[in-house]
């Protein structure tokens, strides 16, 4: 049932356990993130999805096991080196009051800058490219506080893109967006994966969106991986019931042909 990645992925974990205080949140997780794929993590609230992303991006020190990035244990890199290879857009990001879009996105260039260095042409190119890719270029002089939720979310993604990391992890990037903006954002992410040579991982709540956009699904419950694989393989009524305790039927999405979960 599981996909067995025959080559070492850029990013994989090996029996990773993560604690929050004295509680173990993630247990013994071995997971390989397919290179240049769009991996989506699903699972009920509080099952440890965010914690796993934080562990994979060395924001939480593992209590057991290791995370490997580009052939080395992630803690063997300097924080700057990791930040040039792997980006994370957490749920908790906050924009300073009154900051403008251009300036906020330019903070994504932090891993490339030294304490007293000046703004380089390379930084400028990366920021403009990130704004362009997220269609936020015309918002460049707007204050972030004055943007709509959809625009603001695209600006945060632009910040993560400006970091120019080959691997990008996104924690619930579509939360708080209306359906049209969710689809727009997911199309943007798929586009980035296809044209940008990037490896993407996102936590999504909408199962049907996950099935439509992901080429690899990781389903978590109670801090463990219940199953993983392509949507067509693993989205079955029995799996969904095991994962969410929800009885449902799975039909074929009339538009994309991917599984469509319909609750009973």
């Amino acid at each position, binding site marked *: 049932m599981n996909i067995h990645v025959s080559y070492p992925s*850029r990013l994989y974990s090996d029996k990773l356990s993560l604690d929050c205080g004295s509680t173990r949140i993630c247990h013994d997780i071995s997971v390989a993130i397919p290179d240049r794929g769009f991996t989506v993590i699903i699972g009920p609230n509080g099952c440890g999805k965010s914690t796993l992303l*934080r562990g994979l*991006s*060395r*924001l939480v020190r593992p209590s057991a096991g290791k995370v490997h990035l*580009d*052939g080395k244990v992630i803690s063997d890199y*300097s*924080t*700057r080196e*990791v*930040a*040039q290879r*792997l*980006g*994370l*857009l*957490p749920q*908790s*990001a*906050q*924009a*300073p*009051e*009154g*900051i*403008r879009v*251009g*300036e906020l*996105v*330019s*903070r*994504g260039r*932090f*891993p490339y*800058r030294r*304490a*007293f260095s000046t*703004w380089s042409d390379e*930084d*400028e*190119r*990366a*920021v*403009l*490219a990130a*704004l*362009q*890719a997220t269609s936020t*270029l015309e918002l*460049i*002089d707007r204050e972030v506080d004055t943007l709509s939720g959809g625009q603001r979310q695209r600006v945060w993604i632009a910040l993560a893109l400006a*970091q*120019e*990391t*080959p691997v990008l992890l996104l924690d619930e990037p579509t939360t708080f967006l209306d359906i049209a903006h969710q689809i727009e954002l997911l199309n943007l992410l798929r586009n980035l994966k296809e*044209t*940008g*040579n*990037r490896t993407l991982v996102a936590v999504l709540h909408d199962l049907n969106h996950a099935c439509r956009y992901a080429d690899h699904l990781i389903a978590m419950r109670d801090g463990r991986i219940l199953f993983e694989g392509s949507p067509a393989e693993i989205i079955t009524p029995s799996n969904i019931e095991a994962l969410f305790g929800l009885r449902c039927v799975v039909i074929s999405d009339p538009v994309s042909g991917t599984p469509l979960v319909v609750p009973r």
Partner: protein
Amino acid sequence: MNDRPSPVIADTTASPAISFPWRALLTALALCSLLLIVILASLSLGARDMSSHHVVDLLMAPDSSADSVVIWQMRLPRTVLGLLVGAALGLAGTLIQALTRNPLADPGLLGINSGAAFAVVVGLSLFGIDDAGVRLAAALGGSAFCAVLVYILGGSSNGKNQHTRLVLAGVAISVSLGACTGIITLFDSAVFDSYRFWAVGALNSPPPGLYSVLLPVIGLGAVIALSLGGKLNALALGDDLALALGAQPVQVRALSFLAITLLCGSATAAAGPIGFVGLVVPHALRLLVGQDWRWIMWLSPLAGAALVLVSDILGRLIVLPGELEVGIVCALIGTPVLLGLIIHFSRRSR
């Protein structure tokens, strides 16, 4: 394996991502000119007014005239002290506001003023020492002790409520030490008299040898503060994103505490507690130049020095032949400046 994501060619006709920092440069220019004028005024004005021309002459070529003695022995040390103290307080205030994201945070929040005051009073009452050098050492030690205590209680954690914990720990320690200082001075009137002399926060009697302590300590604090601007920009996005960008919040916080203690502790030790500078300077600069802590950090020592010197000059002139303490004048002129800026910018942004 090491392939970068393919670069997208950006549209080069678009406006630049970060527009040229005109506002910051203009502010820097204005502050430098203001500072120059204020330094000259600080040397020329007082009980014995001199023309600035005369002052410059005497600075270039000191002679044995009374004017020369007044300038070299009284006004120059006082002016230099004002510059150092103001610059240090401006930097420390910027650090604490960046760290707590609390627009009301002041370096005094870390218990630095109350720690220094307590140490001075304890030194006075237990050992009966009233020597400027010892007072300096006691104040520096007291503020460092308090800053470490506040850091352990509230600054080192990195949870969601870290900012609140920091503020609460600072307030709790300040208030309890303030009470202890109050009790000691209440029962010991000799101590109270000497303490009051220090606590008025004045620049008028820098002890000899002060600069050999003050300069390196403030210099070190300033270098640390200036190097943290970029990291504080990353921290302003939240701890998780800062970590993801490769900034280390715990390390940045510890370094900021160290710099604040060095800067504010030595300023307080040298000139007594001077409030308000650390509050008004970063506020005003943020309104003027925006959210980039690197610019604010570079401009804050200029603004702090200018504010303290202007206050000192006014304090000397307003109530001639007496003097008004520099801390009071800072608050008196800082408040309208701040209010004016807030009103101006809230109008503009509407």
